[in-house]
């Protein structure tokens, strides 16, 4: 899978315009997407620890492994940050000094949207997440060997988990604004960070279902049964509804107030990306809603696997739709400024209007990288946290 990815990236790079916009936007898209998945795994794990949750214990090592992908995520984001310093790419309108000087709004934002904040903010915040992920993992693995009957490890994890929640709550918003929202440097929406997080969360849960079923088929996790998957299915259903709720809140309020500075965002997407726009709602809301509403569909491996695969891909499309229109707009403006006619013409741009084979190849590559890291981490410890105080509850879990 990673080979497909590397091949796709190289092919994209070679066939790209001279800013390599397509290449870099694909790197950004997938880096943010999978880092987000890892972050959501950490977040849900911390939330579960804090809430004294028991049922997930039997497969919590999967979420721990997911959260450790943050280390790779940090590297990926740093590559993009270095790209801003080195002028390798032009993903962000605000990174172009000439544009900022001639633009009052961008000048106003420049104390937040600048390469220092982007680099060191990301380094600090993702670094914090990495710290929490590693510490929780260490405690969890250590509990297998040194766990005692006072549940010292569980107690320590609760402290960490509780501390991680507000840290992630505040910092994730700041980074999502920088990484994602700022590709449309003029536009803003207070809900955006939560909306993007909901998208990542659905993906994370869908990936968990895929991972568990994949491993179960191969004979691992014999104690994970349909009851656990049923509950994960409920989570997937609930977060899909939550995503829709946020999508609707953002769209409806902007549509209703009809302020041009805000509607421009949806105007572009609705009129220039109609396929993706409607696909986004259809695949991320209508399909999971209709399929997962029934009780029995959440108790069938086949249906769950199918819906999970669709949701991972369609939330990836959601991020595509968040990022690409802003990036191509920036690229067009720069090209126009550089006196390159022709680029600005309307019509489809490969890799932007719709994801092409190279985008999908890159996605597969990153997915491969993600699973490589996750399975590598899973191998390093027992799959069953044998001294976790909640283990018995989890084993005999029934919905």
């Amino acid at each position, binding site marked *: 899978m990673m080979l497909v990815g590397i091949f796709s990236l190289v092919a994209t790079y070679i066939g790209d315009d001279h800013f390599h916009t397509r290449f870099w936007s694909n790197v950004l898209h997938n880096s943010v997407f999978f880092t987000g998945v890892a972050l959501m795994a950490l977040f849900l794990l911390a939330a579960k620890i*804090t809430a*004294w949750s*028991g049922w997930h214990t039997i497969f919590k090592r999967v979420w721990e492994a997911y959260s450790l992908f943050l280390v790779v995520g940090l590297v990926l984001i740093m590559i993009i940050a270095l790209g801003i310093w080195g002028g390798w790419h032009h993903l962000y309108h605000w990174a172009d000094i000439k544009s900022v000087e001639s633009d*009052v*709004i961008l000048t*106003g*934002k420049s104390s*937040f949207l600048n390469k220092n904040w982007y680099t060191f903010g990301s380094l600090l915040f993702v670094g914090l997440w990495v710290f929490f992920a590693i510490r929780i993992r260490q405690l969890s693995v250590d509990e297998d060997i040194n*766990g*005692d*009957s*006072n*549940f010292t490890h*569980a107690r320590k994890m609760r402290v960490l988990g*509780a501390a991680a*929640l*507000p840290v992630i*709550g*505040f910092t994730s*918003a700041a980074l999502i*604004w920088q990484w994602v929202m700022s590709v449309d440097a*003029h536009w*803003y*929406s*207070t*809900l*955006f*960070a*939560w909306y993007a997080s909901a998208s990542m969360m659905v993906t994370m849960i869908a990936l968990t279902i895929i991972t568990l079923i994949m491993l179960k088929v191969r004979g691992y996790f*014999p*104690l994970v049964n349909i009851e656990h998957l049923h509950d994960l299915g*409920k989570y997937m259903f609930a977060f899909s*509804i939550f995503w829709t*709720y*946020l999508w609707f*809140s*953002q769209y*409806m*309020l*902007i549509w*209703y*107030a*009809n*302020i041009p*500075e805000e509607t421009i965002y949806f105007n572009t997407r609705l009129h220039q990306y109609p396929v993706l726009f409607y696909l986004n709602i259809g695949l991320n809301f209508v399909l999971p809603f209709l399929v997962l509403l029934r009780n029995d569909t959440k108790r069938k491996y086949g249906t769950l696997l199918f819906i999970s695969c669709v949701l991972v891909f369609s939330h990836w499309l959601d991020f595509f739709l968040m990022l690409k229109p802003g990036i191509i707009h920036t690229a067009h403006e720069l090209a126009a400024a550089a006196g390159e006619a022709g680029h600005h013409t309307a019509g489809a741009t490969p890799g932007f209007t719709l994801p092409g084979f190279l985008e999908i190849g890159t996605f597969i590559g990153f997915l491969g990288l993600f699973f490589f890291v996750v399975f590598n981490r899973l191998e390093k410890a*027992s*799959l*069953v946290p*044998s*001294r976790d*105080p*909640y*283990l*018995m*509850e989890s*084993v*005999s*879990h*029934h919905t």
Partner: protein
Amino acid sequence: MGAAPTSPIREPLVQGHKTYHQITEDLCSPTERAPGKAWTLAFIVALMAATWGIVSIIITIWVGIGTWRLNRTIGWGWDITNFVWWIGIGHAGTLISAILLLFRQKWRTGVNRAAEAMTIFAVICAALFPAIHVGRIWVVFFFFPYPNTRGPVWPNFNSPLLWDVFAISTYFTVSLLFWYTGLVPDFATVRDRAKGFRKKMYTFLSFGWTGSAKHWQRHESLSLVLAGLATPLVLSVHTIVSFDFATSVIPGWHTTIFPPYFVAGAIFSGFAMVQTLMVITRKVLNLQNYITIGHIESMNKVILVTGTIVGVAYLTELFIAWYSGYVYEQFAFFNRALGPYWWSYFGMMTCNVLSPQLFWSKKIRRNVTMTFFMSIFVNIGMWFERFVIIATTLARDYLPSSWSFYVPSIVEIGIYVGTIGIFFVFYLVFVRVAPVVAIAEIKHILKSSGDQYVITNGQTTLHQIEQGGTALQVAGHGDSHGNAHH
């Protein structure tokens, strides 16, 4: 054994080694005794407050809403502030019943009944405000869309104010049904112990419940359906209340984070009100074994979480206001923090975001007195939040020439105090008539969470499970009634 194993790390939820009979005795007896002094005194005070409120409402209707000192710029003052405040409080009950039921949180059983009752009374108080704030209450039926001969006078379906009518009435209906469904078996328990007029009354209220397997089965499936219906309703009500503001183009009101942030705030204030009531109720009615410190701690955690979510939302608003580069938006927030009503913004931040952070300390979370004061703080803070959003924002219009200031009149204050009175009158009657803690539900969790059944920390050795093996060995010992396994 039939009961699912409960982790030895968990605290018991029913204390005092209760038997099923003792539970019935403890929970029914408050409805069977004559009221105590504390109850009588509280009832008189509540009734007086309610009377002040009703008189104020009559004055408002008689004279007009001019008696509130609203002005052309500030068209909404305490009225809508109170409305949103009460609606927010009215969220916790159904949230506890429906959402915590879905998350299988057993601690909900101790508090769900009272919280649901509170929801219903709070929604009644809330619904008063849209009715009286229109000024001409005799035409309030214009709210409702039905075929009529009024020509062009027809509710505007594009208006979130109309959506409010639908959302709140639906929410009220489902909450009421949900609450009552839970009450039926408990009313039957009271009925079976009662004599004379009380027997007749509870016979009527319990709808001929016999406790047969068929009854229980129907009861359970109805509860599940209602929980499913109530969950989206809990979210929809405050979402639509937030639309009242966010669909406008007023800086400070039009912001996309409003729907989820209002819902989080509603849960926050609802739980605070539940705490206020529970802390008093458990003391007065001697229910410390059912509403334990563990319950209080859990609710305090919810308060900490939702308070922090609200904090994230406040800072997001503040930051994006600056980030937007839109001068009116920037001014709206400058005005909130440093304008004429700066104290309400300050009060909001202190009570809602800073003070709940005290709950990071386990000691404070488990301290009943602190919990009581904190819950009052949060109630105040959430009232300020709505005041900040409504009055502070309206006071500074686009044109400085229409800037204004507003201080409520005695009539408007009276209506607010009056609704608190009405709320407590209802609540106090409720604790006399119905079991405040759901008898049937407590009995349901007794075997898994009663203290005589839960192995407490340290008494057990570790559970060990070999990976890949299905033979589970429990190396436990002692009185492991609920935990024997094979």
